[in-house]
Structure formats: structure tokens, C-alpha cells
């Protein structure tokens, strides 16, 4: 899987957020995208997933040569793109198991694969749940409704494990997690690392990168990537902050 982003410009409600962003990600690589608040990290994640209201005004995004820009979010998902939400959405009245099964089978159907029946699906989901040590009763509840912060993030990683994306974008997955939950969630992500799967970690802090070690680190500032390096760049940011790269003082 290769993700290629060239000169990407995007705006929300007429306000330009991404101002010509370049990024190349090859199969099996883990990239961390860091940057101060308001630099466009979350916007990038949502633009890649195809969120309505995030308008691409220039540049191109291709996944293995297929342009994503005009595709619906569900079409991108079927191509193997997955976004783990910073704030997983609560869906009152929508049963979690039903949701997971609908999602998996919709993608299988879109790819021309056979849908899983209830028995095969339950076996699969129980398997995958062990990866994130999720309580089985959460399967019976409405999606994310009344889940703790940690349970929501585990539910995101469970979806990732189940849907087996080729490109997973994890938006601030560490936010709102205590150390134990962070460790569990990170272990889940690490178990999903594979030579075929690329992972993008969008994060404000270096903390997550202690658990999920990236191959590359990029700093996003004012809608562009201003510095790229290996994991030592994250350490440097931890010590020096972002100001030396952005030329601005960041309000902590």
C-alpha cells in the first residue's frame, strides 16, 4: 500500500487549513504526524477519510494510484483506509455487534467478497477482542454509548483489528487515556503492525511514541510539513517544543 499526498490544499467553511502538504507513505511504515494545536493534523486525518465539509482545493491524494479525492468515505474504507477517531462517536440505539457486522460485511461486499454469517462473525469478533482486552458486555451495548474514554478507544482499535485496513490513521488515540489504557491500546496497535499495513499516528505529544515506535516523524505547522526525520525528532520536540520549527510561541 502506498499513500501519496502531493501539494494538498484543503479548507473548512472557506478557511484554508492545509496549504500544500506533501507526504509519501509506503507499505508497512509507521509515520507519526506531530505539530502544535491548530496546525492541521486532525484536518489532514478527516480530509483523508473523506469527511463532508472538508473541501480539497488543490493537490492530489492517491492510494496505490487511485485518487481518493472524489470518493465517498465508505468507498475509501472499502479500499482499506481506516480512521480511528479522536472522539469516537456515540450511536444511541445502534447495537455495537450489529454495527461491527454491518461495517465488516459492507466492506466485504464492496470488495466482492462473501459476507460473514452471524456465527463466523461472532467467532472472529471474540478473537479480535482479546487483542484489546475489551469487556464482552460492551458488544451488547449501543456503540460507544456510556463507554469510558478507554473503552471507546479500545472499541476503535477493535474495529481496526476487525476491518484489517491497509492504511490506518489514528487521530490523537492517546488523548484521554490513562497509562494502563494507553499501554493496552498501544499493544493492540503494535500487534496489528505488518509489512502490508501502514499506520499514521496523529499526535500532539511524544508519549504515544514511547509505546508505538514510528519509522518516520513529521512536524506539521500551518498546513505544511516543515520537518521530517526519524524517531529522534520526536525526542527533540519533547525537549524543545515546536516553536523553533514554527517560528511561533505555542500557547501550552
Amino acid at each position, binding site marked *: 500500500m502506498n499513500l501519496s499526498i502531493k501539494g494538498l490544499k484543503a479548507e473548512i467553511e472557506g478557511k484554508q487549513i492545509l496549504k500544500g502538504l506533501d507526504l509519501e507513505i509506503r507499505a508497512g511504515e509507521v509515520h507519526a504526524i506531530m505539530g502544535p494545536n491548530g496546525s492541521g493534523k486532525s484536518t489532514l486525518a478527516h480530509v483523508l*477519510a473523506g469527511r463532508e465539509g472538508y473541501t480539497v482545493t488543490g493537490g492530489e491524494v492517491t492510494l496505490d494510484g487511485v485518487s481518493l479525492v472524489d470518493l465517498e468515505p465508505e468507498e475509501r474504507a472499502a479500499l482499506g483506509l481506516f480512521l480511528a477517531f479522536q472522539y469516537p462517536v456515540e450511536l*444511541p440505539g445502534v447495537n455495537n455487534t450489529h454495527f461491527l457486522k454491518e461495517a465488516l460485511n459492507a466492506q466485504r461486499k464492496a470488495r466482492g467478497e462473501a459476507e460473514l454469517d452471524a456465527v463466523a462473525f461472532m467467532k472472529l469478533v471474540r478473537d479480535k477482542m482479546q487483542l484489546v482486552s475489551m469487556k464482552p458486555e460492551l458488544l451488547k451495548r449501543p456503540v460507544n454509548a456510556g463507554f469510558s474514554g478507554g473503552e471507546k478507544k479500545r472499541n476503535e482499535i477493535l474495529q481496526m483489528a476487525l476491518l484489517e485496513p491497509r492504511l490506518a490513521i489514528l487521530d490523537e488515540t492517546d488523548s484521554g487515556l490513562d497509562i494502563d489504557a494507553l499501554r493496552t491500546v498501544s499493544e493492540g496497535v503494535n500487534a496489528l503492525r505488518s509489512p502490508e499495513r501502514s499506520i499514521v499516528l496523529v499526535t500532539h505529544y511524544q508519549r504515544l511514541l514511547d509505546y508505538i515506535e514510528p519509522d518516520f516523524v513529521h512536524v506539521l505547522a500551518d498546513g505544511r510539513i516543515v520537518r521530517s526525520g526519524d524517531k529522534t525528532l520526536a525526542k527533540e520536540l519533547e525537549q524543545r517544543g515546536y516553536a523553533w520549527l514554527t517560528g511561533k510561541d505555542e500557547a501550552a
Partner: protein
Amino acid sequence: MNTGTVASELTQLLHQGQQLQANAPAWQHALREQGAAAVAGQPLPGRREESWRYTPLRFLEETDYRLFTEDSFEALQPEDIEGLLIDGLAGDRLVFVNGRLAPALCRLGPDSREIVVAALGGGLGEVPTTLREQLGGVAAGQHVLGALNSALMTDGALVHVPAGVHLDRPLEILHVAVGLDEPLACHPRHLLVLGENAQAQIVERYCTLGESTYFNNVGVEVALGNGSELLHARLQEESPNAQHLSDLQVRLDAHSRYRLVQPSLGGAWSRCDVRVTFAGEQAEAELDGLLLARDRQLNDVHLDVRHAVPRCTSRERFKGVLDGKGRVVFDGRILVAQDAQQTDAQLSNDNLMLSRSAEVDTKPQLEIFADDVKCSHGTTVGELDSTMLFYLQSRGIPRGRAVQMLCQGFAQEVLDNLPGEPLQQHVAKILAQRLAETTHAADLQA
């Protein structure tokens, strides 16, 4: 609106029923005459009457209905209605076709030996005196079409669950409309009586074979004795071209409990008036309803909950799902009389609009004359949350399907209160089908 013409429509229907009234057993005469007297010469309620303002009865002017007066309907075989039955719904079943009992389609097993089941039209033998005496005893303050039902009632289920009897399996009262050459008007009338500490589940359904035009003008009376408990599911699954009007009247004696779950899914025009009267202390009523209004469908519920005595509890929760030019009307009145201290009443109406052309007219009314009560009401009207839609789509679920799932989720709170999985699954299935058919959902603008 020409009220002269309208009056003659009602009178015409009444006139058609003269023979039916004359042939009815003597014990019904007083009630029928009382009904006829209330209808005779009356104009059809028009837009000037608050209670009918959003629910115009134009269809009665525009359509020539024929009263279905055949004594019985035996053209249908059991296999004809198999497709309408609910998988796994055990228990006895009374089937009415075009308002008339169809004995060959009924299933009366051992359950009904514990209880008294009769048919208004006499199709199940002589109607016991206890039931005769109670018919018409609950209904009060009916609108003119409710009175028309009393005058023209064709057939219906008369059920008495004697004191102390617990009916384990639901009793189903299934109505099937079969299209004939001309539009039919039917006036089914049911009476459900629970003796002291009796418990029962009753499932009332209005279904159709085909998509014909007909008018079901239903009257239901429920009398709950001290300490009794009734779970009452009313499934309105009428033809998309049908008109359905229900007048449901419930009287609760002390410590009794009434639970209504009423998914109203079909019909071009549908209205249900629910009047609940608390006649004894510490009784409880929970009323849940789902109102589906797809394009050009009108779905109305009028509640009139009367807390006349102290220490009773009522909770009313109605949810509307609207699409296209669908319309929902909700009028929820709760009256707390001066003596009804320590009343606890909670009323809510939430509406989900899938289209900008849909319309909701909602009016919760609390009229409180007591000073030591806990009462609340709330109304919401909203669109689908675009973040929720994106979340589902980002998981690979196509937009149209995502819309359906969210609507289903919105309705789930009501559906969860249906007694038993077979009913829950059945209603979820019908709702999913009807939502999938709605063309507007798929191209909805966020």
C-alpha cells in the same frame, strides 16, 4: 369547506349501517343508538376545531366508502395470511378480515380456556353478560368518529381475563384488510377487561394483503381491575393507501399497570386518540409510540391522560421519524386534577426529520390543578447528526444504509419496550423495510 356535504358523508355511512344496526343483537341496541344519535346531523370536524386542525378528514369527502356488511368473510385460507404472521409469536390468535371474524383463520388453543374470549358479532358463541355490560362503559368523551364506531361496530374481540389469572403467552388480535373493488369502511370494536390481579399481554395488529384503499375506524376499550397488569402492543401496519383511526380508551383501577407500545408504521392517514383515566390510586401507565411518516404520509397521536386521583404515575414517550413530505402530529395532554396529589407524569415527544419538506406539529400540554406533583414535558425536533453519519460511512457503511441504522437506533428505545423478541424483531424488520423504500433517505443532504 362545505360542511353540508361533509355532514352527509357521515350520515351516508350511518345510513348504510341501518340494516346492520337492526340485525344486531338486542343487548347492543342502546350503545348503537347512543352512537347514532351523537353522529346524526353532525358535520365532520373541520380545520376550525383545534383537535382536527392538523388532521384533516378530507379523505371522507373524497372517497365513497362502502360499509362492509357481509356476515363473515370466509374466502381466505390459513395459507393466505401466513406471510403476515410473526415468527415465534406463540399464543392464541383471533383473526378478523375486513373487520369480520374469520373463524377458519383463528387459533384458539389451551390458553384461551383460562380466559373468556367472545366476538362482538357472535362468531364465537354467546357473549357473556359480564362483557355485555362493560361494552361502552369505558369510552367517554369520544369524538364524532368514535361515536360512529359505536353506531356501526361490526365485529371485534371481547376479552375477559378473570381475577388472578396470568396469561403467559400473548393473545393476538390480527386484522387483515383484503382489497375489494371499492373502498371499504370497517368499524372494529374491542373490549379488554382484566379482573383483579390478572396479568395479560395482548397484541393488536392491523395488516393488509395488497395495497388497497380502506378506512379502519377502530374503537378499543380497556378496563383494568385492581392490581392487574396489561402489556398492550398495537402495531399499525396498514396499507400505504389506507386511513386508520383508533380511539383507545383505558381505565385503571387502583394499583393496576398499563403498558402500551404502539408502533404506527403504515397508512396514508393515521390517527390514534388515547385516553387514559386513573380511577384508583397508585396505578401506573406507560405509553410508548413510534410514528413513521414517509413521503405524504400523515401520522397523528392525541393523548389525553387524566390523573383524577392521587399517587398515580404516567410516562408518555412518542418518537416521530419523518421523510419526504411526511407529517407528524403530536398532541399530548395531561390533566392533573386538584385531588391528584403526588402525581408523577413525564411526557416527551422527539422527532427526527430526514427531509426539509417534512412537518411536525407538536403540542405537549400539562394542565395541573394539584400542588404536590412531579410533572415534566419535553419536545425535540432534529435532523440526523452528520458526525454520526460520517462515523458509520468511515467504517464502510453506505450512506443510505447508515441513515437507516441511525433511524432504527432512534426508534430502538421504543421498540425495546415491545414484549418479547419475536415482536421486537418483527417491528424492526417492517421499520427497516419501510425506511429502505423511502427514496429520500439515500440522497438526504447533511
